[in-house]
C-alpha cells in the first residue's frame, strides 16, 4: 500500500493515464461514428431529422458534461441496459463527443463551397458519389486540425467519469491524495501527465490547420 508520494505513486498514476487513454480512444471511436452520422444527416437529411438533431445538440451542449455523463450512464441503467463500467463510461462520454464532433464535422462539410457540389452534380455524380469523392475528402482535410484539437478536450474531459466509479488519471490522483495527503506533488504530477498527452496533440492540431489544396469557403 502506498503511504507517501514516491516512485510507486507515479506508477499508479501512469496506470491511471493508461485508462484515460483507452477510454479517450473508445469515446472517440464510438462518438466519432455517431458524429459522422449526425453531421451527414444534419447537412443532407430531411428537414424533421435535421431539426431533431439540431435540437438534441443544442440541449446537450447546454448541459454540463458532469450531468450529461451522470444522466446517460445511469439513464441507460434505468431503461434496463447494463454495461461494464468501461463501456458505460465510453458510451456516456460518446454522447458528449457526438454532439460536439458532429457539430464540428457539420461545419467542415458546410465549409466546402456549394460550387463543389454543383460541379460534381454537373458531372453526373450521384449524391453519394459527390459526398464520397468530392466533399468528404475535402471536409476530412479541413477537419483534421479541429478534430485533433477536440481530442485534447476528450482526454481532459474523461476526468469526469470518476463520478461513476471509473479510476482514470484524475480519479487515480484523488485516490492517491487520499492516501498520501500530498496534493501538491500528486496533482502536479497528474497535470504533468495530462500535459504530456495533450500538448503534442494541440501542437499537431495547429500544424494541421494550414492544409494545402483545401480552403474553406468564406
Amino acid at each position: 500500500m502506498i503511504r507517501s508520494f514516491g516512485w510507486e505513486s507515479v506508477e499508479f498514476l501512469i496506470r491511471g493515464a493508461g485508462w484515460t487513454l483507452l477510454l479517450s480512444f473508445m469515446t472517440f471511436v464510438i462518438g466519432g461514428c455517431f458524429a459522422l452520422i449526425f453531421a451527414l444527416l444534419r447537412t443532407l437529411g430531411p428537414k424533421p431529422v435535421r431539426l431533431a438533431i439540431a435540437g438534441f445538440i443544442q440541449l446537450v451542449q447546454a448541459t454540463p458534461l458532469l450531468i450529461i455523463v451522470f444522466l446517460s450512464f445511469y439513464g441507460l441503467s434505468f431503461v434496463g441496459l447494463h454495461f461494464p463500467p468501461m463501456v458505460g463510461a465510453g458510451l456516456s462520454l460518446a454522447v458528449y463527443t457526438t454532439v460536439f464532433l458532429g457539430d464540428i464535422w457539420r461545419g467542415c462539410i458546410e465549409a466546402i463551397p456549394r460550387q463543389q457540389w454543383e460541379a460534381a452534380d454537373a458531372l453526373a455524380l450521384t449524391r453519394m458519389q459527390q459526398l464520397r469523392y468530392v466533399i468528404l475528402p475535402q471536409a476530412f482535410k479541413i477537419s483534421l486540425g479541429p478534430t485533433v484539437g477536440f481530442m485534447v478536450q476528450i482526454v481532459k474531459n474523461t476526468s469526469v467519469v470518476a463520478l461513476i466509479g471509473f479510476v482514470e488519471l484524475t480519479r487515480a490522483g484523488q485516490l492517491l491524495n487520499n492516501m498520501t495527503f500530498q496534493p501538491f506533488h500528486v496533482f502536479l504530477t497528474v497535470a504533468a501527465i495530462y500535459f504530456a498527452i495533450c500538448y503534442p496533440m494541440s501542437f499537431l492540431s495547429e500544424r494541421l490547420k494550414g492544409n494545402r489544396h483545401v480552403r474553406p469557403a468564406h
Partner: protein
Amino acid sequence: MNWFSKLRSAALATTFAVTAATLVAVPAKAQTLNEITEKGKVTIGVLTGIPPYDTVDASGKTAGFLVDLANDVAKNLGVKAEIVPVNNASRAAALESGRVDMLIAHMTATPERARTFLMTNPYGAYEMRFVARKDMPLKKLDDLAGKRVSVPKGSTQDAAVSGFGIKGLEVVRFDDDALAMQALISGQVDATAAVAAVANDVIKKSNLADIEVKSDVPIFTLYWSMAVRKNATELHHWLNNYIYYSEVSGSLGTLHQKWVGIPIPGGKLPTF
C-alpha cells in the same frame, strides 16, 4: 479510394458491436434471492477511496473492510460477488437504476433516505469527531463559533454540523471525506468533522504532528446500513439475518479489527 467503404464498414461494425453489447448486457437487476441465485452473482456497490476502510494498490485494485464484507455477503448467498466502486455522488443512482443489487457504502439510515430505499440493520458504525489543530481550544461546541468547518458533502456530518446552530459557523462542503480532511491539513478550514478512525489513520500515516482529534466534544456515533431497492423485501430480510449472524459469530468484528485496527465503535450494534 477505399477509405469510404472502410469507414462504412467500421461504422457498421461499431453499430453492430454496440447493439450486441446491449443485448448481452441486459440481465443485471435482481430483486429476489431466487433471481440472484439464478444469475449466479450479486452486484454490490461499495464505497471506495477512504483509508483505512479500504486501500488501493498500485494496480488500482481495491481492498478493504467493505470489499471483504461484500465478498462475504456473496459467499453466504452462495453466489459470486461483483464489486462496483461507487462514491457519495453516485451510490444512490447506482442502486436506483439497477446497476447494483445492493449498496454497502457507509450510509446512515435517515428517515428521509429510507423513503427511497430499504435500509438494513447496521453492520458497523463510526464515531464522528471534530479534528483541528492542537493549539485550537475545543472544549465545547460554542468554541466553534465563527470558525470554518469542512464536511463531506451531503454526509451525516454535514447534516449534523449544519444542525447544531452554532453562531457564525461556516460549513464548507467537499466531495468526500479525504478532501474535507485535506482542507484542514492545507489550512483552508479551522476544523473538520470526520470519522475518528479515518482521522487517526491520516494523522498517524502522514505524521501530522500539529493536528489532533478533539475528544472533549463527542458528536455522536452513527451506524451504517446496507441498502436495497424498495421492493427487494426478501433480500432485505436476508441481509438483516446475515448481519445479525455475523455479529454474534464474531466475524464482523474480526473484519473491522483487521482493517480499521479497532473494534466496531459503540458496542453492540442496534437493530430496528
